[in-house]
């Protein structure tokens, strides 16, 4: 790949045109014929455009496919089959499809998930194979396509035993862990959101009850409490990360404040967008390039929305988390807990030395294992700390009744 200088085209002049740009009903009705005509022109374009192309090969099978399925099909057939590769699928190139169908003996549509192209072909009166052969679910692969079309596929060997799975886990030192431990311990119903903290649903914490869509935690908690009333209000929270909150949490939060829903929202503020690889967000004070930017003050924002109860807690402090969760759930008004500590993987976060297990004191009770930290395991009946992972966060220390987990700091 070669890179070139960025070309910035000159901005087009804006011309005011209310009939075109303001879609109130009268204008929309007058605009409708234009939209239909545009689709007709796009249809013509689809038939001729370079993104839809025919690669003629053997004519026994003709494959209509798109995106990655094209790669799998080429891998299997090479030039042995003819392929209509679609690069633009709305609107579909009707003439191109009809013309292609004429040239091949058997027409096969290979597309992942819903049969969009297949249904369209059937609408055109074509006889095609599609979901009668290929699965509706999951991703395809070269072996799957070969197998479903009756071709031989390579086989590998397997061990005879069932291997333990390796699900992703929250990192050692993850600031979310302390809060999820607290919620799990207090048997709180947790309506979650999208981010690293969705991993709060994984054993042994198993703390998250629901995750659906970004911002859904807060709206769902509002609805949950409206539906179930008092019984739910005292034991249900929303958890949402700082970045997801900025993305789509505020509308739901305003709803809670405005409608005086007695709900508790926990903003897990790790001061970054963790899951996708440390992008900045409006609460961090930096833009996507890392340059200084505007910074939204979460506490001030929540108060401005009408929350009287806004408190900040350090998730490494289990006692403080416990008090905060209990008190805010008990409060008879909407509340926000900001669980604040930067992601342990951020470059500026200083790590402490790994903890040391005092072999004389450890009784092997496994209390420290309740937090699901990947740095802790059991070796010969006693806790063992992985030095390459432990960042000395000290959350496990607070669970040990025997003082056997010792700070590595001098």
């Amino acid at each position, binding site marked *: 790949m070669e890179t070139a200088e960025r070309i910035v085209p000159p901005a087009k002049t804006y011309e005011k045109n209310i009939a075109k740009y303001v879609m109130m009903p009268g204008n929309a009705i007058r605009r409708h014929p234009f939209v239909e005509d545009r689709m007709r022109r796009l249809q013509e374009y689809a038939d001729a455009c370079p993104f839809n192309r025919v690669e003629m090969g053997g004519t026994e099978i003709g494959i209509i496919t798109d995106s*990655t399925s094209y*790669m*799998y099909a*080429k*891998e299997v057939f090479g030039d042995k089959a003819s392929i209509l590769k679609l690069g633009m699928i709305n609107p579909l190139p009707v003439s191109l499809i009809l013309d292609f169908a004429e040239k091949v003996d058997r027409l096969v549509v290979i597309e992942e998930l819903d049969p969009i192209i297949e249904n369209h072909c059937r609408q055109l009166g074509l006889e095609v194979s599609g979901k009668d052969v290929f699965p509706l679910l999951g991703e395809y*692969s*070269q*072996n*799957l396509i070969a197998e479903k079309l009756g071709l031989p*596929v*390579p*086989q*590998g*060997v*397997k*061990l005879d*035993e069932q*291997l*333990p*799975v*390796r*699900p*992703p*886990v*929250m*990192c050692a030192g993850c600031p979310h862990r302390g809060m999820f431990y607290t919620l799990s311990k207090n048997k709180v119903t947790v309506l979650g959101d999208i981010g*690293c903290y969705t*991993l709060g649903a*994984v*054993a*042994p914490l198993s703390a998250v009850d629901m995750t659906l869509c970004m911002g859904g935690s807060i709206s769902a908690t509002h609805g949950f409490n409206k539906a179930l009333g008092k019984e739910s209000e005292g034991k249900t929270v929303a958890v949402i990360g700082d970045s997801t909150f900025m993305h789509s949490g505020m509308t739901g939060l305003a709803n809670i404040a405005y409608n005086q829903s007695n709900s508790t929202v926990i903003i897990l503020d790790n001061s970054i967008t963790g*899951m*996708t690889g440390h992008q900045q967000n409006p609460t961090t004070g930096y833009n996507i390039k890392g340059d200084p930017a505007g910074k939204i003050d979460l506490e001030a924002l929540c108060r401005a929305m009408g929350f009287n109860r806004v408190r900040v807690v350090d998730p490494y402090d289990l006692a403080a988390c416990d008090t905060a969760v209990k008190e805010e759930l008990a409060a008879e008004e909407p509340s926000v807990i900001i669980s604040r500590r930067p992601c342990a*993987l951020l470059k500026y976060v200083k790590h402490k030395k790994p903890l040391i297990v005092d072999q004389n004191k450890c009784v092997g009770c*496994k209390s420290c*294992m309740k937090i*699901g930290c*990947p740095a*802790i*395991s*059991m070796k010969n009946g006693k806790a063992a700390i992985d030095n*390459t992972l432990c960042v000395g966060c000290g959350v496990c220390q607070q669970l040990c009744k025997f003082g056997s987990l010792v700070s590595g700091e001098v």
Partner: protein
Amino acid sequence: MTKNVMIVGVGGQGSLLASKMLGHILLQEGYDVKVSEVHGMSQRGGSVVTYVRFGEKVYSPIIDKGEADFIISFEQLEAARYLEYLKPDGRIVTNIQQIDPMPVIIGAAQYPEDLIGKMKAKGVNVDAMDCLSLAEQAGSSKAVNIVLMGRLSRYFDFTVEKWEQAIRDLVPAKFVELNLKAFALGRGED
């Protein structure tokens, strides 16, 4: 003929740099190359897999069961997990390190014993070595990826200089020496 190399391991072990390095060399050698990675779980201790495919013309970005010429594994259990992807005459190059997954940590499962022996018993070519010790010997436990690349290099015709240049091209200057040492230790005596 397309060749397939799968790189598997535990998130955070550095498999992305390994695949980048391999892709880098293969591109320079004039191959058509496709490298695809499972993103998102890279730092969270999950099972991770990267596909490197090269040849005259590569279509599919993934490697399917029974197709891999090499499986480079950073960890024993992960080598066993992806075994089914290996060609019958393919080769597994693996670190013997064991990293407990969460089900083992919380006592819901046992870490299987002697996985390397069991794979060999199935007739699989396994080249197993203690990459962690070699990486530590080179100066950092994080250099396991380059130790493994060193070992893999024995099975390729490219000159040592080519691999070393790839390290210089891809690794920050202050870590180049360490990684060159790790590579040499992994490759061992010819």
